[in-house]
């Protein structure tokens, strides 16, 4: 490994949406940019690029993570799930995606991938969250379009459909 001051590329192995990838990347490449530019997975969005808005949220080893303040070397050996990994291979939407469709929980869609990943984490831990639990869990994802109520409704819908 390079211990000097020049940014020689590093080699990493990372599982993305179930597929193992071997890449070289500049150490300062953020994981958000790695997904978008090296792997063409542009569903993960760049909003603030300092960890505040949540648009870049992905799941790493099941945990919601801001990919904009994460650097390539940090995901060597990790397993990443992005929004592109939610729907089934045949295109059937994930229950959370379907719920968003049903409750009109997106308009421009920019914040949506980040919300979806955060909600997948939430519903993996709390089967039937209350409004307060939902709003607290989603407090780190900002939406400028919807006013959030339709998003909260989508989470309730998804919780019901997952439990069926």
């Amino acid at each position, binding site marked *: *490994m*390079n*211990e*000097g*001051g*020049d*940014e*020689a590329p*590093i080699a990493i192995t990372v599982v993305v949406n179930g597929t193992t990838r071997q890449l070289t990347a*500049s*150490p*300062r490449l*953020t994981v958000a*940019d790695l997904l978008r530019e090296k792997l063409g997975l542009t569903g993960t969005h760049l909003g603030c*690029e*300092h*960890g505040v808005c*949540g648009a870049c*949220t992905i799941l790493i080893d099941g*945990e*919601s*993570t*801001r990919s*904009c*303040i*994460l*650097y*390539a*070397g*940090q995901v*060597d050996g990790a397993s990443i799930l992005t929004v592109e990994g939610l729907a089934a291979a045949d295109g059937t939407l994930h229950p959370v995606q379907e719920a968003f469709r049903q409750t009109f929980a997106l308009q421009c869609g920019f914040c949506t991938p980040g919300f979806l990943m*955060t909600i997948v*984490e939430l519903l993996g831990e709390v089967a039937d969250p209350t409004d307060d639990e939902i*709003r*607290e*869990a989603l*407090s*780190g994802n900002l939406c400028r379009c919807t006013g959030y109520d339709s998003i909260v409704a989508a989470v309730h819908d998804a919780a019901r459909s997952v439990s069926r």
Partner: protein
Amino acid sequence: MKPAPFAYVRAESLAHATALLDTHGDEAKPLAGGQSLGPLLNMRLSSPTLLIDINRIPDLTGPTVHADGTVVVGGLTRHRQLEIDVELGRRVPLAIEAAPYIGHRAIRNRGTLAGSLAHADPAAELPAVVVALDASVTASSVEGERTISAREFFGGYYTTSLRPTELLTRVSFPPAPPRRGCSWLEFAPRLGDYGYVGVAAVVDLDDRNNAMSVEVVFSGVSAVPHRSTITLDLVGSALDTSDLADVASRSSLEIEATGDEAASSGYKRRLMRHLGARALTVARDRARQS
């Protein structure tokens, strides 16, 4: 916003990390959770030439309880672990109560105890908590370890007594007296936003319900956690609610709270008064029930 170029190395052991820090000094930065360092890097407010990823260093996470009741928490313990660890919640309830206020879930999944203390953001929760609990931190370097009292650790805005060649590896919380009650309260404009004012209250009672010691420490009002000196007046008292309100009020006048366009100094002073009084009351009631 992209960071300036840096090299990246993953430290496999504490010795490896401290050796690198010794060689590179302030040209290198340790990378733990990255939730505070990442924004600085991306905005180029920090441009180290080397990032030392310390996340794989073994034996730096989780709490250990010693025979005398001292609780030692590894520096790499994530805020999320602080939030949900039941045993730690019994032993250091103030840390568990403050942890959910730290940012948002994604931040807490990665952010670490040592990182928060070393970064020393004036609005951060954990610096106020460790000052309130009279904890101490251990700094490790190639020269060995040194222990620093939390009450002497914070020097100014984003400034601590940690040297560039040192890693903050653990935090020790002294054993809690048997009749202790704590409370953490914080006000922020939205859930998870940086708090305008946070307050830690710690009340220790004797078996006649009189105060042996009372601590009130505020975050967000000065460069370093503000530890009230007015609480000394409460020692030996029965802690009537009006006395607690009076102490909170006088504590809010001890300093000129740093205001900004979001929250003026006067507004923060009022928050100190109200939150301080409430936190002291809750802490007292919890101590009485113990």
